[in-house]
């Protein structure tokens, strides 16, 4: 039996197709999110790669910021519950999840069954999110996937103290013009992201294992900065961008089986 989880975020679209509740048949990501062609493209890609049709899906659950606009879905579940479900499936020892996506930063505390005990999210401000890193990468003329490497060469991380993305951008520009090395600025940017996420994690209560997911988890520089700030190891979920879609697919499976109360 196949089930599908669709996670439409603010800056990327993800689909997971699951066989019998445990075998990941497809896990696709397109780096554009709600309101774009991303949702349709990622769906087509997942179906094409798995050689399956939409009709083969026993149940489809949508999650993420754009969850209400997915016509194919039978139901919507919040990304908080889906992240918890997906991460706990991959890392059953997880106690705290740090999820950094396009516009949200979340810290989610799990109980020993993987249920959400508490969660905290960023409020009005998008500093410390994936979009913040996008902006910095553009200003620094360094690709997002190269930022971790730059960070690893930093000798003295610069301070990026502004809480606002726009002001932080000016701060970075002025550091660049003062000749501060990009490596050090990038390490400072990563620390800034880490401090926002860790603030939320501290409110949850930090307890191992700590698992990171969301697109930003692919940036090892951020993972290192978070681990340093929390003084604890941080596990990156396998394929961290698809964990919420995976959770949605598991929920879909449990609903078909009648095991999800």
């Amino acid at each position, binding site marked *: 039996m196949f089930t599908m989880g669709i996670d439409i975020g603010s800056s990327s679209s993800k689909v997971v197709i699951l066989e019998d509740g445990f075998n990941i048949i497809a896990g696709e990501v397109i780096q554009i999110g709600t309101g774009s062609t991303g949702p349709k493209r990622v769906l087509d890609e997942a179906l094409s790669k798995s050689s399956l049709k939409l009709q083969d899906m026993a149940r489809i659950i949508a999650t993420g*910021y754009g969850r209400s606009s997915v016509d194919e879905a039978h139901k919507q579940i*919040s990304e*908080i*519950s889906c992240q918890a479900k997906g991460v706990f499936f991959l890392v059953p020892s997880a106690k705290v999840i740090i999820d950094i996506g396009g516009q949200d930063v979340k810290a989610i505390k799990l109980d020993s*069954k993987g249920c*959400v005990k*508490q969660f905290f*999210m960023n*409020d009005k401000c998008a500093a410390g999110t994936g979009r913040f890193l996008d902006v910095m990468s553009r200003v620094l003329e360094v690709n997002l996937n190269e930022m971790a490497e730059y960070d690893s060469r930093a000798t003295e991380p610069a301070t990026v103290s502004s809480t606002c993305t726009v002001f932080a951008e000016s701060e970075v520009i002025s550091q660049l013009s003062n000749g501060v090395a990009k490596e050090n600025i990038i390490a400072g940017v990563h620390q800034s992201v880490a401090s926002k996420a860790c603030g939320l994690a501290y409110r949850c209560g930090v307890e191992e294992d700590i698992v990171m997911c969301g697109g930003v988890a692919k940036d090892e520089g951020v993972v290192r900065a978070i681990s340093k700030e929390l003084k604890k190891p941080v596990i990156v979920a396998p394929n961290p961008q698809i964990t919420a879609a995976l959770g949605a697919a598991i929920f879909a499976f449990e609903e078909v089986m009648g095991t999800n*109360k």
Partner: protein
Amino acid sequence: MTDTTNMSAKELLGFYQEELYEEARRAKKEGKLVCWSASVAPSEFCVAMDIAMIYPETHAAGIGARKGALDVLEVADEKGYNVDTCSYARVNMGYMELLKQEALTGKTPEKLEKSPAARIPLPDLVITCNNICNTLLKWYENLAVELNIPLIIIDVPFNHTMPIPQYSKDYIAEQFKNAISQLEEICGRKFDYDKFLKVQEQTQRSVAQWNRIASLSSHKPSPLNGFDLFNYMALIVCARSRDYAEITFKKFADELEENLKNGIFAFKGNEQKRVTWEGIAVWPHLGHTFKGLKNLGNIMTGSAYPGLWNLSYTPGDMSSMAEAYTRIYINTCLDNKVKVLSDIISGGKCDGVIYHQNRSCKLMSFLNVETADILQKQNHLPYVSFDGDQTDPRNFAPAQFDTRIQALDEMMKQNKEGVSNE
């Protein structure tokens, strides 16, 4: 005179709200005094002196709910009021500015012309009380200075410890006396103590009916949705010292009790989860917040906000009246705030709590993080907080709200169904 005998509570609510504004406009035309008042400032003194009353906070909420806040907020912005200032204050200062321009030029500014809110007359005096916040002091001082009119301040100390000490009640009672002598001077006649006693008695009858409505949310399923209290609140603010409030609330309580008897509940269908809403309503997005909860099968059965007007006291006893006006939970220490909210949550038999992080209302919001933390340790109920504002529509993001309440709903569901093990 309109016959109100056969009106429903909802009709009475609309009728008396309009009637109050009409009375104020008429008073102004006839050269009688009009007073603008803070929402939990004692209304008894002015009503005893036959002064027509307008409540800017309720008026601002109405402007917000009718999607007219942005226009007047922009006027306040232009006058230099910082966006960190309470949005009720900014809406009112903006509205006052438009009324003032009209009075000075004889021309109605376009923004005033197209404002969806009820037209209100400019005040001849203002009365404020800092029992719900200190912004009200500067807000009303500004009104008084801008319009060159008298200001009555009833200073109520914050209760850092409970119970309320006698010296505090004595001090507030002295403030009342001072307000009375100011009013005698403004009105040019002696204070009518006989009428004052009658007004106090009327206020108590209104409050008793208000509390009667609020208590109905303890039934499960509930005949009352807490959002109804947000709507009916207009009269406990604006007419508690008149029989308008008593008549309307009695009718509403009777209707709800009848519904309860007949098995008619507020949630059409099956109420699945019950939540407490801590904080002021998001007036510009009231429909969105209400429907968001409703679509998930949730009903709001707890809110401490309407309880601000649980102003029970003994008529004729100034010390007792002083206590009623100072014990408002946001004028008390964290321990007491937590206790009040805890009683609201258990009284409403709630499964979770929603905290409105509303930077307009500093006293209600800024202790939320600590309050939520303490309460959760006590009751183990899930909670979420969201960013919003009582009247500035720019400070609320519907999608952010939706994600939080959906997650809360899922947490409440897992708790109720025993999936979670803690």
